[in-house]
Each structure stands twice: as structure tokens, then as C-alpha cells.
């Protein structure tokens, strides 16, 4: 059942030390900045963060990293022009890194949400990222066995939510959000708008309410300003 909160701090309450937290967004689009800021205030540490990137500048995930709350990052692309916070922590051995090809990252979370115990992916066969993975030839092609990535929490940014917790997204800000929402025990969503029950087209709901535990509305402007950097 979905609960709607009035403040970000209530929405992120209770995240335990040592949790695995799935964080949506691709670059800045769809990045749940308000929830990450709430998580920093909330104080949980020793976190494993699963996200496509490892932070930009000193905001969002970079700020969480800088605050020393992250034990491990699982992502596809940590290195960016302004990922210096992560870079320094990684080089000094203060954060672990598991690099996962972007499609395997998405599919492993999809598997967690879909009750799939593992799957054979053709991605990364014959590359250094195949090291330690089980390889199998199926129907003449080689595949690697990949296992689910399940989150204790998912932090997702969506566009609109109805009172039940049904979600829609905006353009490419959708990216990892719908997948992460299925893959976490508790899914926490920040939205730009809350809309009345019945105002979302049932044919166009992207994340059905069953995947959503907590919703909080945030100031659309702040998200937009961040995203436009």
C-alpha cells in the first residue's frame, strides 16, 4: 500500500545502515535529488549504491559519497567529467566499485523485480568483465550467467503520482525508475505533481501502484534547475 508523505525527511525515514539503495536517474535526468539530500540528512551509512553513474560535482550521489556514507558503488559509468568526488574516494580505496554493463545492470534489477533467479546475457562475453562469471553456450552463442540485483530501497524520481501511487514519467527521465521500482523492498518516489485519482490514463501508467511504497511531492523548480546544469 502506498503512503503519501508531506516531507522528504518522513519519506526517507528508517533506511538502515548497510542497506542496498537503488538510485534512479541517468546523469541528471530522473535523478531523485531531493530524496538523496534527505538520505544524507537521515544519516544511514555503509550503503551500497546501485545507479548508472557515481555522482556529478558535489551534489546528489557525489554529496552522499563525500559525506562518507557509501561502502560500495555498483554502476555502469562512474567516470565523468565532474565525478571527482568518486574518483578520489576510489583511488584512495575508500569505496568499492563493481562496474556492470548498463544493459546488464538494468536487466539484473528487472530480474530481481520479476522473480527470475538468473539469466544468460550475451553482453561482456570475452571481455574482462566476464571474469569469474559462468559461461554457457546456448544454441550456438555464448552467454554469461547474471544474477539479480535486489535493493532494500529504491529512490526514484517520477513526474506525476495519483493517490494510489500510480506513476508516469517525463521523456528520458523515465530511464531506470520503473525498473528500480520493481526491484526494491521499499520504493520511495519523489514526484513533481500529485494528481487526483482517475486522472492518469490507465493505458499510460508506467509504474503501477503495486510497486510504490512512499510518495512525496517536491518542488518541481529545484529539480528542473538541477537538471539544466
Amino acid at each position, binding site marked *: 500500500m502506498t503512503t503519501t508523505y508531506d516531507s522528504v525527511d518522513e519519506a526517507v525515514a528508517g533506511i538502515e545502515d548497510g542497506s542496498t539503495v537503488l538510485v534512479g536517474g*541517468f*546523469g*541528471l*535526468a*530522473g535523478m531523485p535529488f531531493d530524496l538523496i539530500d534527505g538520505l544524507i540528512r537521515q544519516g544511514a551509512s555503509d550503503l551500497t549504491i546501485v545507479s548508472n553513474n557515481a555522482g556529478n560535482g558535489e551534489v546528489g550521489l557525489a554529496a552522499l559519497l563525500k559525506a562518507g556514507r557509501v561502502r560500495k558503488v555498483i554502476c*555502469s*559509468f*562512474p*567516470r565523468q567529467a565532474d565525478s571527482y568526488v*568518486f*574518483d578520489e574516494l*576510489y*583511488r584512495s580505496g575508500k569505496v568499492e*566499485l563493481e*562496474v*556492470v*554493463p*548498463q*544493459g*546488464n545492470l*538494468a*536487466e539484473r*534489477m*528487472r530480474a530481481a523485480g520479476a522473480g527470475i533467479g538468473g539469466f544468460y*546475457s*550475451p*553482453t*561482456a*562475453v*570475452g*571481455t*574482462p*568483465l566476464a571474469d569469474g562469471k559462468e559461461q554457457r553456450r546456448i544454441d550456438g552463442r555464448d552467454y554469461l550467467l547474471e544474477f539479480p540485483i535486489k535493493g532494500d530501497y529504491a529512490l526514484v524520481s517520477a*513526474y506525476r503520482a495519483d493517490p494510489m501511487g500510480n506513476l508516469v*514519467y*517525463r*521523456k*528520458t*527521465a*523515465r*530511464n*531506470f*525508475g*520503473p*525498473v528500480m521500482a520493481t526491484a526494491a523492498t521499499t520504493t520511495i518516489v519523489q514526484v513533481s505533481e500529485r494528481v487526483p485519482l482517475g486522472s492518469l490514463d490507465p493505458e499510460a501508467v*508506467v509504474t503501477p501502484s503495486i510497486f510504490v511504497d512512499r510518495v512525496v511531492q517536491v518542488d518541481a523548480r529545484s*529539480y*528542473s534547475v*538541477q*537538471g*539544466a546544469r
Partner: protein
Amino acid sequence: MTTPATTETPSVIEHLDRGPLSMNEVAGVIARDMPAGAYANLGIGHPTKVADHLTADRGVVLHTENGMLGMGPKAVGDQVDPDLTNAGKVPVTELPGAAYFHHADSFAMMRGGHLDVCVLGAYQVSVHGDLANWHTGGAGDIPAVGGAMDLAIGAKQVFVMMTLFTKTGEPKIVAECSYPLTGVGCVSRVYSDHAVIEVGPDGARLLETWGAPAAELAERLGLARSDQQTHR
């Protein structure tokens, strides 16, 4: 002026009336060779320039792995929307007939072999189509693969867009990649400043050259001169 070579390389086209191509011109050649109506992914960086050379009548539909088909040109001015970017996080636009989807669906589309063409940059490509484009292998380098490995194995055809030689003049078409691999036997063609080169199970073959005859390039690349099909 185009001079079809007739001696050692029956099918190679040599453009000897000019120098090598600029990367923008390479993008134009890739656009020229893109099948009409193709679904294509242009990765990030240089390959995204191919879009500038694709006219609407070609009907090429662009995919970006962060969840969109029907991507339009880069956004300018008021078009900039922080919720709409390409895989390189550059603001872009939306064309009529576009569709959005989430990351798992987007990569399922790629992995499932539904894209006709993907264009990627590279550090090295082997004559058999192995691709190295994600990691220099340097000890201090932070590994970051992004969608490169998924793209490499996903599309029906993978085109590489790169300079043919490093800044120090070393060929980037090689017998075996020395950089860590992105994918095995996945590249079908290399589009470069000096030449278009087919790679694959039968080795490398020059298809078209600019600024130098095929024989001379084959020599520099270490390809056998007789038919350019075998790496020495």
C-alpha cells in the same frame, strides 16, 4: 573525383584527388551508407555527428539507450529540457512518432537484435571485428563501460567511427587488440579518416580510401597487399 581501383583490389574505391576526411566528413560517409528506414543508435561523442548528415527522407529512426526511439537533433535555446537528453547527456529533441521506454526495455531492444545499425567509437578494432573502446587498461584508470558492451553485441551491424591511426601513427586496425575488449567479433565496418574497411571472420578488406591508394594504406596497416583480406 573517384577512381575505381582495378589492379590489386578490384572493388576498392580510391579518392585520390583530396586528402583524408575530417571526422565530420566521416560522419557524412556513414550517413550515406546508412540503409533507408534503418533503426540506428549513434552512441555518444563523434558518432552522434552522423545525425547531422541524415536527411528526413532517409527515414532513419534514431535510438538512444536511455530510453527513446525517434530522437531529433540537439536541443537549442528554449528547446532544452533537462528531462530529454541523449546517451551522452546532451539535451536533444523529439520527432513525431517518437516513443519512450525504460532502461530494461531499451536494452532489451538492443540485446534482442532489433537495431539495424549501431555506430561506436574505438581505441582499436581487430581485423576479425573485435572491439576495444571502453578501457585503456591503464593501472590508474577508473573502469567505466556504460552501454558500450551492450551496444557492441546488440545491433545487426556495428560500425566503428575513428581515426585510422593514433596520434603517434600507430594503426588502430590491429591483428589482435592490446586494449581490453568490449566485444568479440562484433564490428562489421570501420569508417575512418583514411578509409572504410570491412572486418570480420575473413579478416580486413579496404572498401574505400581517401588521400592515398589502397595499396599504400594496406602497407601502413600491415594488411596483405594481394587482396587486403588477410592480416600478415
